[in-house]
Each structure stands twice: as structure tokens, then as C-alpha cells.
């Protein structure tokens, strides 16, 4: 196995542990925004989509690139926007009422 590949596995495993640590404490109230926010982050595949779209050669590659761009951008733009819309609604009880 190439050093790059091994390094990739190291990064993958460490990042997964960071993910477990960071997320295990999220209160149930935030589960939906957490999921849609995480989902938006999985749109990181946009990076691969940009490269695929920019350097596609031939009709098949261009179609794949176009689709990959569109899918990934739906995920990124839609994911972050809808999460923001949801979180905007989460309010604490006004102190006056207590």
C-alpha cells in the first residue's frame, strides 16, 4: 500500500473518533439540525465533483460531471440553508415569563 493511502486511512480513523467525541453529547432537541447540518457537510464531495466536471473528456464524462456538480450543490446549498432555517426557530423561553 502506498504511503498516501495509509495516511488516508489514518486520517479517516482519527476523524471518525473526533466525530464520535464531538457528536455524542448533542441533546435530542438538536438531532434534526445535526443530521441536516452533517448532511450538508457530506456535500464536501463537491470538491471531487468540481474536478470531475472541469476535466471530463467526452460526452459520458461531461454528463457525469454535470450530474455530480448538480447533486453535490443541491446537498451543500440545500443542506446549509435548511439547517439555518430550522435553527433560526429554536428559541429559549423569554425570561420575562418566569
Amino acid at each position, binding site marked *: 500500500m*502506498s504511503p498516501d*493511502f495509509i495516511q*488516508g486511512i489514518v*486520517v*479517516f480513523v482519527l*476523524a*471518525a473518533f*473526533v*466525530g*464520535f467525541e*464531538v*457528536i455524542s*453529547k448533542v*441533546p*435530542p*432537541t*438538536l438531532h*434534526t*439540525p*445535526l*443530521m*441536516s*447540518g*452533517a*448532511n*450538508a*457537510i*457530506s*456535500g*464536501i464531495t*463537491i*470538491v*471531487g*465533483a*468540481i474536478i470531475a466536471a*472541469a*476535466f471530463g473528456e467526452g460526452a459520458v464524462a461531461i454528463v457525469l*460531471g*454535470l450530474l455530480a*456538480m*448538480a447533486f453535490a*450543490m*443541491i446537498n*451543500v*446549498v*440545500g*443542506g*446549509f*440553508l*435548511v*439547517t*439555518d*432555517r*430550522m*435553527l433560526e426557530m*429554536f*428559541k*429559549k*423561553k*423569554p425570561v420575562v415569563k418566569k
Partner: protein
Amino acid sequence: MIALTYLLAGALFIIGLRGLGSPRTARRGNQIAAVGMAVAIGVTVVWVTDQPLSALWWVVIVGGLIGSAIGAVLALKVQMTAMPELVAAFNGFGGGASALVAFAEIVAVGTVVAADVKYATQTEVTVALSIAIGVVTFSGSFVAFGKLKGIVTGRPVALPGGPYFNLVLAIVSTASAVWAVAFNEPLGYWILAVVAFVLGITGVMPIGGADMPVVISLLNSLSGVAASMAGFVIGNQGLIIAGALVGAAGFILTVQMSEAMNRSLANVLFAGFGTEGAGPIDAGDKPVNSATPEDVAISLAYAQKVIVVPGYGLAVAQAQHAVRELAVALEEREVTVEYAIHPVAGRMPGHMNVLLAEADVPYDVLLDLDQSNPRFPHTDVVLIVGANDVVNPSARDDATSPIYGMPILEVDLAATTVVIKRSLSPGFAGIDNPLFYLPSTMMLFSDAKSALENIHEALLDL
């Protein structure tokens, strides 16, 4: 330098996810993650510009604009009750994009970009994994979407051969992946994609609507893993980090949701819960206390402490505003109103919390399972709106019940329980609910929204 910028993006994702852990910082967290994404996109564009090869910018821009427009419209138009469908769809697009990236990589073999990536066996393995996981996520998510939207039946659909059907598909897809990798045979990847597409469909079809919180969480996890695999394919650590984070996040939710139903993940995925009938329900003869909205209004008005238990029925009836208005009217009468939310209430983790937040219910009166149960014995009235299995005392008392052992909201410990339900029909699990026949239970047979509005009206007349 480029690699370090991706690391920066990864760090911003981690900080963002951390922010999502607390209601006060959540919105900021999401914005930080979005900045991380902008950084990643920006540095990729710079990298592409630096390549000696001229880039097909129109493909990037046209695809990007179409996707952004669709994503923005979906995100801004969606009703909060339809959030599970939307998240399922977004998961599907994410998984699909990762699979497409891997495909583009195979098609591009021989071009300049592919040539500087040393094509080693391990890269091909990740291509196969990226395609398999991405495509399963794609088709599985859209079946889940269909089930949530009601286009596809929410009932579990039995497959010929049961779980073995999918086992065979999994073996076939593994075989075609091995063929593709070991013999350098691109056709193998296409077969893999087709089989994975079918597997996504047949994998989700046997799973019932009430198990959707588990399925969506799992698909969420898979969309992250697919992105990570795509990162291995194109040799980009930004993707590997971000994908692994999402994979972990989705996996934690998957486990938590399974635990909230006292079932293993394997049981949720393969058991087809509810396909083998849980025995006929002899609900016919048992007496129930059927109540009018006026009866309910009276008991609410003279209570000191009321806990509302929302369920999927609340979402179906779009009754979140009606419940909030009723609660406000009660609070004006000095009645304390809180909300008890079961982890698997609704169709996705946290579904009820989002709906109630939309109706301006402050998040600090939303109680989780552990906070709620000690409070029920001191509660005068519990108002159950569209929930059933999560308040079924059989899960605690009846060792023969299929849901025995599932943690429930122990609403039967409260002085009075009001159940708003359209009919006596059993919930998803097909199990009768002894709660309905308790002397302390009042049944109000009606659509959740009109019931709440009628109670509200009756309350104002008191």
C-alpha cells in the same frame, strides 16, 4: 498549501459540528461549517485553475447553478412537517454525487488528471466502495423519501426469500466489484452500480414507516462514508475528514435510535417488523372513555401541570401551531405546560422538536425521555397528540408484547391521560395499547388539529 487549506476546512467542520451540540451555538456552528465548505470549494477552484489542462468551466458552472437553485428552492420552500423527506432526499443526492465522482474517475482514466494519480489496487477498491455505498445511499434514500411522502407504502414490504434476497444481491455486488478491481474490468463497476441501486431499493422496502428514524440516520451515515471513499479515490484528505465526521455523526444517531426502540440495528434492517402479524387485536368489546372536547377542556383548565406528548400524528395533521395556541391559553390560566418527546417520535430524530420550534415553543420546555418519566406521577393531565407505541404500557408490563423492553413515556402514571386519536386502530407496530382502556384515560376521537382547536374554543368558553 492546498492540502493545508483542506485541513482548515476540516477544522471548520469540526468546530461547526461542536457548535451544533448546544441550542445557543447551533446556528453559528452551522454557519461556520458553511464557511468551511466555501473554503474547500474556493481552494479547489484555485487548484483547477493552476492545472496545465484547460478546464471545462461551463460544466462546473452550469451544474453548480442548477444544483444551487434546486437546493435553495427545496430548502426555503419546505414545510417543517416535511423535513424528514427533505433530509432523506439530500442524503440521496450526497450519496449519488459521491458515486458519480468515483464513476467520473474511471471514465477519466487516460486523461491528464488520472495519469498523475497512480492507479493502484487500493484506489480501485475505494472506487468500488464509493460506487457501492454512494449508489445504495442514493436509491435507498429515495425509497425512504417515497415512504415518508406516502408515494411508497409505509408498511414493510416482504421480499421473496426475506433477508436472503438482499444477501444474494450483496454477494453479487461484491463479486462484480472483485471482478472490476482484480481484472481491471470497467464493466464490473457498472454492474456493481446497477446491483447496488437495486439493493438500496430492496434494502429499504421491507422497513416500516416507524423505523424511519433509524433508516434516515443510517443513510446519513452512509452518505458521509461515501464522501470519505470518494476522498480516497481522488486522493483528497478534506473529503476523507469531512466524510468520516458525518459517518460518525450518523452512526451515533443510528445507534441511539435503535436503542430508543430496544432493537438492534440488524433487527430494524432485516426483521421486517410488523410483517408477521402481531396477532389479531380484540379491541372490540373493551370499554373506553370517549370524551368530548368540552370534557378535555375542563380537565385541562383545572389542572396545574400538563404535559403534551406529541407523535407522528401531530406532524401529519400539521397541528403544531394548534397545540402551541392551546398551551398559551392554558398558561394564561396559570397552568404549566411542558412537552415530553420520545427519541423516536415522528419520522426522524428530533422531528417533533423542530415542529414545536416552528410553532415558537421554547426549547427549554421540551423534555426528553429521562426528564419526562419522573414528572408524570406529579402531572395532572397528559395530552397525547398522535403518539401511540411510545406510550404503550405493554412495553413495560407485558413480556409477551413484541415491543416489550422498549423505553416508553410512562404517561399512565399521570392522574389523567387524554389521547387524541382518529380511531382505536393500532399504531405502526400493530399492537393494541392497554392505555386506551384505563379508567384514567379519556379518548378524544378526532383529527389532531381540529381536536386541539375545539378544545381551545371550549376552554375560552369556560
